[in-house]
């Protein structure tokens, strides 16, 4: 057996290893991490349900039928909590304070959102990261979050598949904020206008509540950023005495661990 033969075999082995690593980074890790990430988000939701329970007994007392509560009507009036949602309490750095649910990406798409856009502290850990300079769910302005498109869970892998009107839900301890997807935009990495309180209009004072998702584009590279915008529709308060804990029907199975 010649020395050249051994070197050749080593080189072939190295090539196969590199290809295997790329396949792992782009597809296998996402597949392996998915179930774990969904389970973590479900567990957090259960904890929120558990800690919400003690505040609810007063509403259980009067009757079993919450007949006069406007938030239980199909079309709540404009003054109800549905359109005046609570503002999420400011999270500490790297705290997992929310979750993202997007039915378009499958019933098992349930991913946690943490504070900050640190690569090693948040994004590389299979989390979506909230831009700390942007607003929080319920605040007028822009709730902007970022995540990997490939690798590290590939949380925004399918961002380009969103269609007009698709619902994007953000869950917090208080409940579910429903946004409707409006449009995609492609910007340079320096395009910070996308996370303005009113996206791309730095001078404007916000009167609406937006959500902005940012990730890399084209896939596998970092030359551009792909941006998805949504606008706030309404809020569903967490209510452990209600069916599905108050979650909207569309995501009831996902957030209650039945997906």
């Amino acid at each position, binding site marked *: *057996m010649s020395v050249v*033969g*051994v070197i050749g*075999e*080593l080189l072939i082995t190295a090539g196969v*290893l590199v290809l*295997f*690593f790329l396949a*792992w*980074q782009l597809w*296998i*890790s996402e597949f*392996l991490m998915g179930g774990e990430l969904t389970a973590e988000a479900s567990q957090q939701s259960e904890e929120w349900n558990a800690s919400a329970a003690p505040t609810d007994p007063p509403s259980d007392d009067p009757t079993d039928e919450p007949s006069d509560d406007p938030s239980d009507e199909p079309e709540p009036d404009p003054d109800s909590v549905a359109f005046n949602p609570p503002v999420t309490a400011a999270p500490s750095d790297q705290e997992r304070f929310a979750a993202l649910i997007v039915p378009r990406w499958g019933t098992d798409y349930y991913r946690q959102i943490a504070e900050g*856009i640190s*690569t*090693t502290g948040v*994004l*590389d850990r299979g989390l979506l*990261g909230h*831009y700390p300079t942007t607003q929080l769910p319920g605040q007028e302005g822009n709730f902007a979050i*970022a*995540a*990997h*498109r*490939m*690798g*590290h869970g590939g949380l*925004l892998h399918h961002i380009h598949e969103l269609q007009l009107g698709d619902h994007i839900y953000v869950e917090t301890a208080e409940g579910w904020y429903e946004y409707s997807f409006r449009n995609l935009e492609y*910007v340079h*990495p*320096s*395009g*910070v206008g*996308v*996370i303005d309180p009113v996206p791309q209009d730095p001078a404007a004072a916000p009167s609406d509540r937006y959500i902005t998702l*940012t*990730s*890399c584009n084209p896939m*596998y*590279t*970092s030359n551009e*950023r792909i941006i998805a915008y949504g606008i706030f529709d309404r809020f569903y308060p967490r209510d452990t005495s209600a069916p599905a804990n108050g979650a909207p029907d569309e995501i009831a199975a996902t957030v209650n661990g039945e997906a």
Partner: protein
Amino acid sequence: MYGALWRALPGPWWVRVLILVILLAAVAAALVFWVFPWVDQFVTIQEVTVE
């Protein structure tokens, strides 16, 4: 190198194939669960935020 490995394995050809498949699976699992996650922290090039 791989020829020597093949000759070093005991048994008839199908036993050797079986051993190789098991070895390959073990190596693949070690790569996926330990080696690749460790290497990954040095080679990530994707930037997903605007700044």
